[in-house]
Every structure is written in C-alpha cells, then in structure tokens.
C-alpha cells in the first residue's frame, strides 16, 4: 500500500486501526498469560479487563456508536452500524453478566475484536473501492483543462468550453488536444492511447482531422476547431463513461433486492433464536450469544458491494483497451451474445479499394506502370488504388482520352495504351485473358497487344478471419449483411468464414434481417450488431447490443451504440467478450460464495458450533475475499502486454 494513494480520512483510520490492533494484541496476550481477571480478586474482578477492552472498543468504534445512535433516531433499524453496536454491546453485557454472577471472566476480548475487525473490513472496502474509482478516473485524464486560443497575433489560455467552432487554437507538444478540429498548420505525431488503447503514435499533417483527448507529442500544431466543446469527442466519451454505472445489471439488482429482505429476515431470526429456546431451556446467555452472532452476520454491505465493484472493474478494464461499454447491463448481456451480425463494408472489410491481384504476376511492374499512366488524371477510387499500388510517378506527356463506360486510352507518338474493362478490349480487338476473380477488373493493352489485368477489390481487414474464427469457436453465429451483389457477398463471406450472409440489402432491409434473427435466437441469448455507426444507427438501436467501430472519429456512432470500439479493430470484440466472460464468472462466484458462507455461518451459530469470531469472518472476511476476487477482473487480457498506467500526460 503506497501512502500516497490513501486519502486523509483513510490515513487517520489506518492509524486508529493499527493503534487499536496493537493495544488489543497487548491486552489479549497479557490476559492469556497472567489472566487479567485474576489481577484483582473479589466480585468486581471483571471490572479491570472490562475497562481495558472497553477503552480499546471506544477508540476503534466511537464513530460506529455515534452513527448507530443517529441512524436509529432516523428510524433506520436495519442499519449496519446499529446492528454491529447491538451485537458487540450485547456481547459486553453478557460478559459483564457472567462476571457479576461469578462465572469465569471472558468474552470481553470477543466483543472488542468483532468491532475491530469490522472496522478493518470497512477500511479495506473503502480502500478497494477508492482504488477502483481511481483507475477509472485515470481514464478521465483525457479531459483537457485548457485551450490556447489564437486571437490575431496573441495566444490566450482559455477554458475549452469558451472556444467556438471556427476558432484557431494552438496545441503545443505535450499538451492534450482540447477540441476536435482540422490541422491548418504543422505536422506532428499524436498519442491516442487514452482514447483508443493504441500504443503506436499516429502521424498527422496539415489538412487532417484530429480528435480531442489525444496528446500532441512532437511539434506545435495549429488547429481549426470544428465542434464546440460539449459536442467534441472527449466530452461524449466522458459523458458515456460517467453514465456507465447508472445502467444497472440484473445481478446488481438481484443482490440489492436480496439484501433488502436478507437483513430483516436474519434479524427476525436472531430475535426468535434469543427468545424461544431461551424460554424453553432458560439458558438465556447461550442463546442470546447465538442471536448476537446472527446480528453480526446479518450485515448486508459485504454482499452488496462486491457486485457493482466487479462490473465497475470490468468496464474499467475494457476502457483501457479503447472499448467503451455504456453500462453494466450491456456487459452482462454481451456475455450472453450468441449471434453477431456484421455490416460488410468498413466493418469486415477495409471499406476502400485496393489491388488484390495482377496477372500475369511476372509483368506486375509493367502492367501497373501502364495503368498508372492512363489513370494519371483520374480521381475515381479504382484509379486511386492503382496509382497508390504503383507508388512511383507515372510518366507524363501522354494524351489521355476518356472513353465513357469503357476506360481510358493514352497516346504518345506511336505508343497507345488502353486501360479499361472487357468492352474496351473487345471493341479494339485485343485478345485478352479473362480475369475471373471477384471485384473490378482493369485490362491493360499496349499497341493493340494484351499486357495483363489488374483485379481490384475491397479487402478483408487483417484481423477479420482471426476474429470470426474465434467467435465461431465460441459457438456464436456470425452473419454478414451487405448491400453488395450475391457474387461479391459470397466470396467475402467465404473468405471471412462467417456462418451466414445476406446480400443485396437496402439499408431498411438490414433492420428487417436483424428482426428476423432476433426472432430466431434463444430467449436468453443476445444479438450484437457490429457496424461503423455511420449509416446503421437504426440497426444498432434495434439489436440487443449495438457495437460501433472506430468511434474515435464519430460522435454519432458513440451515441447510437451500446459498446464503442474506439479503435477500428475487430479484435476489440473478442477482447470485450473475454472481459465480459471473466466479469460474469467473478460476479457469479461472488454471489454464490458470499451467500453460501453467510448461510453456513448462520446455521453453525444457531447450532452453537460457531462463535462470534467466525461470525465476524462471515461479514468482514467474506467482503474482503469478494472484493479481492472482484479486483481480478482488472487484469491483463493481452499476452505480453505491458501493464502501462493509463496515460497521464502534461
């Protein structure tokens, strides 16, 4: 435990606990060795140990006593402080009774220890929840605290909310980008780890859009602000994270409802246990003692705290990897997700064209060079992909003629290059080799002789196969929806490995398809829709869980979805699935474990096998173990990952 991580109040409590524990140990050992009851003889012999233990009791428990008095005045009978006080004061009273009636002097240590351990447990709970909160608020570090607003030649340091769209701001190296905008001057590298979990810096240059919350690393940038602060990415994300715990899971609701009945029920049982057997056997002190143990076990907080703590840790762990989950309920539901519906373009595929095949491969350089010459002036996506694949500068001096619906011809002196589709080849009588791959084919001919063809298609993302494979391996159904024609859809679906696909869908058909799938799935299963969040808001809303990819750029996506992958990387889905699984396993363990231990201890105390020491374990021990278990949620999910503290720049 680092001293710096404790609050003032916690430090004070820690000192109090340590002192009380030391004093208690001293008195306890002294009692065992010299028997304090024997120090003074006579009927008042009990007073000496009583005073020692009472002093420690008051040091450690004065606040609990005070709260008990105050809360009972408000009519809070089932208040934890009150129950603890009744139990411990009752134990003291029993011990005094024993002393007065001349029986052996014992039981003071127990009364004192119960409250001492209760306080230790409370301290630990406080520490654990505080630490967990801090790990989330470290994420909140993305909140920018100022913006450097440019007014004429001077630069003014203002609050980000005072900057308006259209203003120019200056972002110095080491500073957070306070608002979304477009770079108007300068080039630099940005660290987006706090937003996306991506550890590699991103190079940005003039004209590019940058999002708030990232950190400028190397050089000064001038940025034209495109959105007001409340509309910027950073505000949307903070709002989302802060609201996340309002959406409660079923497990949380179950445990609070359970606690609502549990405490009164156990207290009633305690009352019965004291009175009924007491009347029958008239061995009042034994049965009252057992009833007091019941009161100790009846405290509900241990039970209640571990569940929200687990979910909180799960949401926190996910956010470290750039996965934002909008509520505990979605984490719970996501664990039951069995059907994954993917949009094709931009989700499974890159959403941009690229050259996938050049044939014959031996002529690759030459084919691409000729095509690049012909496509030199074109801005068509196909032309762009050819040019970017060629890389070098295309030779100039050609006269380019666009032949509508067929392609382009480029002429320089005797040399004529034809570049286009089959029709172009056929019309010019070129004997070409047909390319049968799925996608757009560009044929290239030079001086009437066929040179080769280029196949251009939208490619799968690098991680698509791996992620679909993992989801299929978990027994999930993976479905691809697309507006593309059957041939393209079939080929992409086969390559990606999805279990089913639907082609030629209009945007409104996608909602219908999702509704069909919703009707098909099992009652307890959930359906996820994964899209880029731009055109699929209705589908995201209709599905049980809407997942938007690449949220760092789009606030519309953040709004419409339930889980946001800040980084445009499908692996976030299988990662989130693992986090959800682990969280739910731990939640389940905690519920079963806490309730089972409490019930067992209740039974043992009722039968007289368990004393108050065991009872206090039933309250504090269980809480500590459940909390430690909950903290396991926040562990490493990627092998070999460096456990970097969330980014804290400035």
């Amino acid at each position, binding site marked *: 435990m680092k001293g710096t991580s404790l609050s003032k109040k916690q430090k004070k409590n820690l000192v109090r606990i340590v002192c009380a524990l030391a004093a208690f140990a001293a008195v306890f050992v002294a009692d065992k060795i010299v028997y304090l009851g024997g120090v003074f003889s006579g009927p008042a012999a009990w007073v000496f140990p009583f005073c020692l233990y009472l002093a420690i009791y008051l040091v450690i428990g004065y606040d609990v006593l005070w709260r008990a008095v105050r809360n009972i005045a408000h*009519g809070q009978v089932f208040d934890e402080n009150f129950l603890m006080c009744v139990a411990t004061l009752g134990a003291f009273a029993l011990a005094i009774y024993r002393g007065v009636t001349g029986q052996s002097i014992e039981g003071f240590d127990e009364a004192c220890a119960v409250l001492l351990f209760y306080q230790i447990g409370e301290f630990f709970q406080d520490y654990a*929840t505080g630490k967990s909160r801090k790990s989330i608020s470290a994420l909140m570090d993305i909140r920018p605290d100022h913006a450097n607003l440019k007014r004429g030649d001077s630069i003014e340091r203002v609050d980000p909310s005072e900057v308006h769209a259209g203003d120019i701001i200056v972002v110095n190296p080491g500073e957070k980008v306070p608002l979304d905008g477009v770079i108007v001057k300068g080039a630099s590298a940005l660290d987006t780890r706090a937003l996306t979990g991506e550890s590699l810096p991103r190079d940005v240059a003039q004209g590019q859009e940058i999002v708030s919350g990232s950190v400028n690393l190397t050089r000064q940038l001038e940025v034209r602000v495109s959105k007001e602060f409340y509309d910027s990415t950073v505000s949307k994300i903070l709002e989302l994270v802060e*609201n996340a715990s309002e959406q409660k899971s079923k497990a949380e609701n179950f445990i609070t409802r359970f606690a609502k009945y549990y405490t009164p029920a156990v207290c009633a049982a305690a009352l019965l246990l004291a009175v009924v057997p007491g009347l029958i056997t008239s061995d009042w002190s034994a049965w009252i003692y057992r009833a007091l143990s019941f009161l100790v076990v009846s405290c509900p*907080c241990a039970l209640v*705290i571990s569940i*929200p703590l687990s979910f909180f840790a799960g949401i926190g762990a996910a956010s470290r990897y750039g996965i934002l989950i909008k509520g505990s309920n979605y984490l719970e539901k996501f664990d039951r997700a069995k059907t994954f519906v993917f949009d094709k373009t931009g989700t499974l595929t890159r959403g941009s064209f690229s050259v996938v095949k050049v044939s014959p491969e031996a002529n690759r350089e030459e084919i691409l060079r000729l095509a690049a010459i012909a496509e030199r002036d074109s801005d068509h996506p196909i032309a762009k992909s050819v040019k970017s694949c060629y890389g070098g500068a295309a030779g100039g001096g050609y006269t380019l003629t666009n032949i509508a619906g067929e392609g382009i011809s480029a002429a320089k002196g005797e040399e004529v290059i034809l570049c286009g589709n089959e029709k172009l080849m056929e019309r010019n009588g070129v004997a070409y080799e047909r390319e049968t791959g799925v996608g757009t084919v560009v044929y290239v001919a030079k001086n009437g002789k066929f040179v080769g063809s280029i196949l251009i298609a939208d490619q799968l993302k690098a991680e698509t196969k791996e992620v679909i494979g993992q989801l299929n391996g978990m027994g999930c159904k993976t479905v691809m929806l697309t507006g593309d024609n059957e041939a393209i859809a079939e080929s992409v679906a086969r390559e990606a490995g999805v279990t089913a696909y639907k082609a030629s869908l209009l945007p409104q058909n996608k909602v219908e398809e999702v509704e069909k799938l919703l009707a098909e799935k099992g009652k307890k299963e959930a359906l996820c829709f994964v899209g880029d969040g731009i055109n699929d808001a209705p589908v995201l809303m209709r599905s049980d869980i809407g997942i938007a990819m690449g949220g760092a750029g789009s606030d519309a996506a953040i709004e419409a979805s339930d889980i946001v992958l800040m980084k445009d990387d499908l692996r976030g889905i299988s990662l989130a699935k693992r986090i959800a699984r682990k969280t739910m396993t731990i939640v389940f363990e905690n519920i079963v474990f806490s309730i089972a231990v409490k019930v067992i201890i209740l039974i043992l105390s009722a039968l007289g096998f368990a004393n108050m020491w065991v009872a206090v374990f039933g309250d504090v021990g269980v809480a500590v173990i459940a909390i430690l278990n909950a903290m396991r949620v926040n562990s490493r999910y990627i092998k070999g990952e460096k456990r970097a503290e969330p980014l804290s720049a400035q």
Partner: protein
Amino acid sequence: MKKVFKLEDLDCANCAAKMERAVARLDGVTSVSISFMAQRMAIEADEARFDEIMERVEKACRKVEPDCRILR
C-alpha cells in the same frame, strides 16, 4: 428533466441502494439511479417542481445516510 448530481461521502453500497429506493418513492420523481461506484445520482423528475423535489430528495437521503451530501 434529467439531471446528474455528484454524491460526497457515500460510503456504503447498501445505503446507496436504500437511498435509491427512498428517492424512487417520492412524489414527482420519474426515475432515479444511484451508482455507488461512480458516486453519482441520476434523477429524472417533474421539471416544473424540480427544486422542490430536490429538497425532498435531499431530506430522504439524509434520513438514510446523514454523512452523504448531494452536491448541487
């Protein structure tokens, strides 16, 4: 109207649940969610009487957990 308030010194998870139940019962409150972990209360209530409702919310919370303060 929906508003979110920060809660200070909300130290016990069960108290948060009790406070939530107490506030939910108040007249004029449409919905309320208290998050122990985030130390926040999101409350949706009749806009016209919001301040008056918040007075009663505060009172109800004080009764359950006097240490906890609603930051308004």
